[in-house]
């Protein structure tokens, strides 16, 4: 399994750090399951993808899927740590317009504290 996920809490926000590849199969499933679990107890999640060097169409689908269900239940997922490759993918697929992307974890956490708009 080429994906590792660490979860921790900081200032009331849950931060999930991913390392490896988010691809169709075990990895995408792991991401989905972990996020589901986390979302059952919190509404504020920052997904740090600094350690992710590759995401394929399946992984992207899972990312969007989780994002949508989070929003549907009143929770929010913000992204940070995007490398160039990930940025390119989100750019081409225009998902940059959908996700909230921040340069650092701190910035992402801060937007939660400023209160949901």
């Amino acid at each position, binding site marked *: 399994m080429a994906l590792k996920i660490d979860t921790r809490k900081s200032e009331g926000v849950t931060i999930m750090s991913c390392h490896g590849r988010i691809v*169709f199969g075990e990895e*995408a499933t792991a991401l989905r399951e972990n996020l589901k679990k986390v979302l059952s107890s919190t509404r504020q999640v920052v997904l740090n993808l600094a350690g992710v060097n590759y995401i*394929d*169409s*399946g992984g*992207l*689908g*899972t990312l*969007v*899927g989780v994002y*949508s269900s989070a929003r549907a239940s009143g929770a929010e997922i913000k992204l940070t740590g995007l490398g160039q490759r990930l940025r390119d993918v989100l750019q*081409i*697929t*225009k*998902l940059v*317009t*959908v996700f909230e992307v921040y340069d650092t974890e701190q910035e992402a956490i801060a937007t939660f504290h400023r209160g949901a708009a």
Partner: protein
Amino acid sequence: MAFQTIVGPSSGTGSGVFPTLVFVQGNEQRVINLDHSPFGVGRKVDKDLVIADPRVSRDHALIVSENGVFSVVDQGSKHGTFVNGERVERKTLERNDRLEFGVREVAYVIFNPQHGTTNSAREFLSQISGMHISDETTDLEKLVLFLEAARKLNTIGVLDEILMTLLDVTLKLTRAERAYVYMKNAHGELRLAAGRNAKGEPLLDDKTISHSILEDALKSNSEFVLTDTSRSVDLTGRKSIVAYDLRTVICVPLRKPQVHATRDAEAPAGAMSAEVMGALYVDSRFASRDISGVSNDILHAIATEAASLIENARLVQAEEAGRRYQQELSIAASIQQRLMAVTIPEVPFAKLAGRNLSCKEIGGDFFDAVNTEEGLTIVLADVSGKGVSAALLASTLQGMIYSQLTAGMPLTDIVTAVNRFFTDKNIGEKYATVIIARVQNNGDVEYVNCGHILPLIVSNGEVQRPAQGNLPVGLLPDAKYQSDHCRLKPGDRLVLVTDGVTEAENARGDFFEDSRLEQAAISGTLEKIFIAISDFCGGTPLNDDCTIVELMYTG
């Protein structure tokens, strides 16, 4: 006896070797296990075999078993019961007898029809035993020979045959009166799979066996449990032993052969895991022989060999199922190939070429081209994921787009409609990136790009990347789509690729990427680009489908 194996799926049936009835009515044919007696036939809905015809009496007949012999007994029916065309009141049944109840020809039952391989295993084994076994051969050696031969037979073997052979051999060697084999079903419950007595008759029910001893044996860690009730054993709670005068009961739990991933020097050959997949039960009464002296070696051999035997038979069944699945898959793949076959339209102002390189038999990429009044439209799409699920959606997507193109729908309407379809149907996390480009004879191109790799326009040795983009289709229900325009001059080439191209990897983990793609596109046409990709990858196989579509505008 080191048995290298992989764990196969659990076999759900274990129907046991009960006689079967094949019921034929019109076009319908059904196989029914004759697993209890009496077995009722009639028009009433609660019958074991319901024949819905007014000429069949409500309680028409019974099939009964006495001492392993089956008979059909007419219950005073109006139109009679027939065996092989002859009207009967009561008749014993033999293999392949044809039974008719009240009606002739339209519905009938074949009793215990002969299968091609029935008895072949036992016949073969008795041939072997005849050939190799001399008087000096001990019982144990005979058992091992039988079971090894049976294991080899498993290339054509049927689980039921193996079970019966096992019971025969066990009875012969322990000289017990009755033997039963139980198998765990998919839910982990122990179910009677087959039973046989020393006379060779099948035993259909196990009401008189000691279930309590069987349960104890399964819970224990022992290889086998032998209970000799004549030796002042506490019989509280052992109802069957008392009631049916059972003297000796032997239970052998059948444990799954150990899974060896590698040849492990420490693991003993033929080692058993703790997982119980069934049990062998053997007993005899006070009135018959004393079997308590049966050799421990024999029981040990049964315990180890039997489990391997059964597991092997299961694996063969699983392999057969796997083979059938593979066949289905290749049929699906060939259907998909035909659906995806593109007839390149001939137009005076452009030359079109497209090629797809699939990394599996069945894939999620497709391209298409349609020539209408509105222009020459080319489509390239990539459904997320891989394999059968992606292929299924790709074909659906292709159909939707093709039909809307021939109907002359505007490009943005088409992708909006596709997006609605995908998101409404709630397929899950499936989506597709799509690019559609419509070329006019004056070189004007309208394109709508839904999350796809940017198209390339190769013009005068330079590459432009028209950058208008939208979300992929199928991701978000309220996505809005916009198109844009660009222009082709005579000699320009419009190249569309899927991300299998830019994400093609070489052994070092580098990706082909846009820069190499642009270089390759400048230097040559479609074929050249494919060659560049394969040179770059070296021996590393593709991990995603690669499709390239190229339109050369001649004007």
